[in-house]
């Protein structure tokens, strides 16, 4: 997993799986790396081949963390999720919290 900072933007990529095994670690790492007043948090899912309910939970925790400061206007973006994972986001309504974009 790769985490990049760019001012108040955070970019995470190279995530193989977001599953029960690594979901907690993922959440903690990203939360730790989050800027105080994040502008945009972008998670590149193009390499991610598997997400389960634990992974969803981790993503949701990040959403809460980003929005915790009472701070509006944080952009949370999931980039290039694979079709099955896209379907999963839609099934679990996560697409209403995260912006899903394709590049």
């Amino acid at each position, binding site marked *: 997993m790769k985490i990049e900072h760019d001012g108040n933007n955070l970019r995470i990529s190279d995530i193989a799986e977001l*599953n*029960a*095994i690594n979901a907690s670690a993922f959440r903690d790492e990203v939360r730790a790396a989050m800027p105080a007043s994040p502008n945009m948090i972008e998670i590149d899912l193009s390499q991610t081949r*598997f997400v*389960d*309910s*634990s992974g*969803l*939970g981790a993503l*949701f925790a990040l959403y809460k963390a980003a929005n915790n400061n009472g701070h509006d206007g944080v952009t949370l973006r999931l980039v290039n999720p694979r*079709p*099955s*994972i896209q*379907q*999963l986001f839609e*099934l*679990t*309504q*996560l697409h*209403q*919290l995260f912006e899903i974009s394709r590049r």
Partner: protein
Amino acid sequence: MSESHPAERGLYHRVVFKCDLTEARTATRSLRGFLAEQGLDESEQFNCELCLAEACNNAVQYAAKASVGRLLSAEAICHSAGIELRVSDHTAGFTLRKKRGIAPGRESGRGLFIIQSLMDEVRYFRSDDGNTLVMRTTRTHQQHRPADAAATASLDGARQQLESCQQAISGMARELCFRSESLAAIFRCCAELGRTSDLEGFGDRLMNDLLHLATADWFVLRMLPRGGTQLQVFATSSLTLFDDALPFAEDASASALPAELAAACTRKAVEFDAVRSTASYEPLRVAGATASGLVHPLVFGDKLLGTLAIGRRNSDTPFSALQAEMIRTFAEFMAVQIVNARHHEEQVHVRLVAHELEIAHRIQRALLPCTLPPLSGFRLAASWESARQVGGDFYDAFPLGEDGVLLVVADVMGKGVPAAIFATITRSLLRAMTVRSHHPARLLKRLNELLYTELSSVGMFITAQLVFVDLKRRTLVAASAGHCPVVIFSPDEVKTLSVTGTPLGILPHATYRQETATLGEPGGLLLYTDGLTESQTPSGEMFGHDRLVEWLRARVTQPLTAEAIRDELTAELNRFRGSAPLRDDQALLIMAEHPATLANPDPSGFRDADPLATASPDFAAASSVLSHVQT
């Protein structure tokens, strides 16, 4: 630990793993691999993997403390209808409720929500020794393995084969229908022909049926009469179009001939196309400027009977192979029926002719007297042989008083039953008339007057020799209506008495002469018909009157009975004729004197070639009817 084998319901793969998330993950990955092999697509694979992962994670994360060391199992069962996923756990168990929507933020229950959303059927079986979660989903896609690609292709191929089979079957059904209709038409027409023997009606019906079956617009059936030189229209769809007779010459060159004559000369089917025809004279062009069709010769063996031309008004739609074959079948069948009809006609004609001849023969035979009358001092013998071809010779002998007899030999010139009837009439008239007159010349005159109108109206005539013999005075008076002369014979001399006279039925008011002569000692007379003297050898040499005289001269050097003379003369005639057929009726009547004549004459003085002697009809009755005739 995993095992994979075909089960009753399908192929399955089972993984057993420790109660550990990482091992669970490995297990679910392995199961996904198995599902991929079974041909599930990406989306189906992901969904199953996810559901298995959720179940396995749950089993691991909520394992009862005491069961943490126990192994868990996850399996996937694949069959054609769907997939079944099973995960065992040793948790406290959960309550499986109907799926309900959850807010995205809600952590717990998310796994079960996912399973219930992605799977068609979810069951949870709880027991003391462990629980099993069963998840089922139907397969949405077909397998995509290479072997299965072949199955797809073979399914398409099977569909194509089925379609082409169906097409072939409907084509066959159409053809069967067509052929059975044409057979039905043939049977129908034949039944009618059998009933009516009407060849023209048959031809008309058969060809109209063909017109209908072959969906043609016109036809013309021509026949060549026996010995004829013109192909005449026998039946046609339109009399106004085709009414010519086509002159037919066997050796005409086939180039530039009109189609019907080309077919007739070559004895082969010829195609006709009004547009492409190069013949300068083509009667079939009347069918239409763009007409087309086929002409079939009607042949039997090598004999041409006629032609059948049939076609359509335009050449856009030529006859199909099936229709052309049907036309050929009908043409051949028509030819056979024509030949049959001609045979039948001939047979009927032959039978009628034979029947008429049979009647005539019977009448002739009936004319002849069964017995010849007894004469004092003389005997009569007669012979009669019929050629069965020509009309009636007859002879008769009427005793007149104690010492007289009228001898008659006559020849009705004509054929068949009419000749025989005239012979009957003549004999009856003579019998009636001799009651009053012994005058041969007058008898002939009267006979001629009575018969002239009828005889001349049918173009027949009768020759007759009448001889009245006075046995006491030993004189004879003879009159002849164009007949052969009488031969008077005795051992001393043989002479001929020729009296001229016209045959009956030639002149309306003929008169006749008579001549007198005396009998020899002992006396003998021979009356005969020209069938005797005109009898021929195979090489054509005729017996002739002179030879007859010579023969008598040689034979009657000593007195012979009438029977003996008759027998020997008959034998001589047969010997002379040899193998040549009898060409004309032969009749002869002999009167001979014999000193040893018995008081009771031989009742069988009459002899003829036909051993089946029939009874003589009752001429007395006829005579009484004619007795009013004035002489």
